[in-house]
């Protein structure tokens, strides 16, 4: 990252990053006495892979939940596409084009992989009940289009072989991939991934890293992801926010952040005062 002007920057591998898509301003989130997020500001730029890292309990998931409308901060402002966003329900945020996955995987276990992915298209369907019932006109076009998009994402993430399998029966690594597929099929403006590689073996982690890079590269999707593991993040992300005990202790490109003394202390577990 060379210069951080309002209309973006060029990455070291030559990708063009655009203006600010999402901005968090002085966010504070409390749960009773626990302050999960303490006065944090940062932004996410168009086309970027933005990472949030930090030790367990740092407040990373809480931050993602604020962005996706699951939590509502007591203080601060959220700006999306330059406009202040009023407090919104999660489903309203989703309809604005922000898709997400969960740290603990939230899938529809009783449905097949294909059906799960198809639910990602629900916000894109407008046909009336009658048209759907008669399988006519708009309803037919929409369903066909959604099906094509779902199949494309399924191919892209290499889960064709389990299309018809009920999700509840899948191993952990594949579930994570299905959840990504469901988020991706919504063609989000912003994709939020909460620890997409947690609990995976090395091979699965490599696959997932490749998918995340490919998604960003091929569709130009803006991605904000949480990771626990520094190593993974360094290869993947353009800019990193580091959190510790609810506070922001670093923000910048991976190399810069890695050299930051506060960050090193947090990761080495230096005692807090």
């Amino acid at each position, binding site marked *: 990252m060379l210069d951080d002007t309002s209309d973006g920057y060029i990455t070291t591998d030559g990708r063009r990053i655009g203006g600010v898509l999402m901005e968090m301003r002085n966010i504070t989130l409390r749960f009773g006495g626990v302050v999960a997020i303490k006065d944090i500001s940062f932004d996410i730029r168009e086309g970027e892979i933005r990472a949030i890292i930090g030790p367990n309990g740092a407040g990373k998931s809480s931050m993602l939940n604020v962005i*996706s409308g*699951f939590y509502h901060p007591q203080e601060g402002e959220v700006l999306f596409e330059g406009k202040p966003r009023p407090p919104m*329900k*999660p*489903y309203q945020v*989703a*309809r604005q084009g922000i*898709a*997400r996955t*969960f740290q603990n995987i*939230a*899938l*529809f*276990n*009783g*449905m097949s992989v294909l*059906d799960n992915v*198809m*639910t*990602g298209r*629900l*916000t894109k*369907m407008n*046909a009336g*009940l009658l048209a*759907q*019932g008669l399988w006519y006109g708009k309803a037919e076009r929409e369903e066909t289009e959604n099906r094509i998009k779902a199949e494309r994402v399924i191919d892209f993430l290499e889960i064709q072989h389990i299309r018809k399998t009920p999700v509840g029966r899948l191993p952990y690594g594949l579930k994570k991939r299905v959840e990504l597929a*469901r*988020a991706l099929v*919504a063609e989000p403006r912003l994709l939020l991934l909460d620890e997409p590689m947690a609990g995976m073996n090395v091979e699965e982690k490599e696959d997932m890293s490749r998918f995340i890079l490919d998604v960003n590269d091929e569709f130009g999707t803006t991605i904000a992801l949480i990771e626990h593991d520094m190593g993974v993040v360094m290869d993947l992300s353009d800019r990193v926010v580091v959190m510790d005990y609810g506070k922001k202790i670093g923000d910048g490109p991976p190399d810069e952040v890695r050299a930051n003394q506060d960050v090193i202390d947090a990761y080495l577990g230096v005692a807090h005062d």
Partner: protein
Amino acid sequence: MPEQLLFAMEVTLNGLMAGVMYSLVALGFVLIFKASGIFNYAQGVMALFAALTLVGIMDGQVPFSHLINAIFGTEVHNFGWHVPAFLAILLTMVVMVGFAWAVNRFVLRHLVNQEPIILFMATIGLAYFLEGFGDLMWGSDIKKLDVGLPQGINTAIDDVTFNLLGYGFFIDNLDIVATVIAIILVTLLVLFSQYTKQGRALRAVADDHQAALSVGISLNMIWVLVWSIAGFVALVAGIMWGAKSGVQFSLSLIALKALPVLMLGGFTSIPGAIVGGLIIGVGEKLFEFIVGPMVGGATENWFAYVLALLFLVFRPQGLFGEKIIERV
């Protein structure tokens, strides 16, 4: 064919028809339970309320006339018109959707994330409220409901079976109509939940609330939808039972018949509710036919509950539910 077998066939047929109605009532419970984890104690009273409203609208009754007359010293009772059954059913449905909306807006929305027992208690309160509200709105006298459904013994079936088997089956026309309507309704519900956007959203909510929210589904919208569908099911059940035995408090007890069906079929299974209803319908009629005479009859009062009890002991997850194994 031996006479006993013919009797048994007739009994089975009647049982199947009763069973379809049980399935329908049970489906009302299952839908709400699946989508929100609420066991809706008010389902039976909803059927009573729907039937009361239907009669009231058809007869041009002035709603809350007792209250109005008491307050204003007036003597209004009737608008003096009659609304055709079809239109009245539509209007009643509008009232039931309004009820669904109000329940969600004023009760359930304030109880999000509460324990299931709290939600259950809330529906008990709702049941008593709705019972009183229905009385206040339409009066508490027993009413006759006639939406023009055929009644009496079906002579065609009687004739055909008599000519074919030498024994005429006694099948009630109303039972036939009720069965056909229930089958159509059950089919529509299944198609709706499998093939429409709203149905897919409903299944999503039933499966996982968080995930449903994350793909842009409004839980409130779905809850109003399932309560509306439950209201519709209640209306149909109310019409069938009301046409048979009048609209009165006992109509709300049909919900009690759905309980054993749910224990058999499982609280979350749509096929379970359908098959469970049929088993109980046929089971209680055949049991009464075969065992009834030996024990002095009236087995229909308890057969379904005993069967359900046996299921609770030996297969608590119901016919189609998956076995729950506690993780330790």
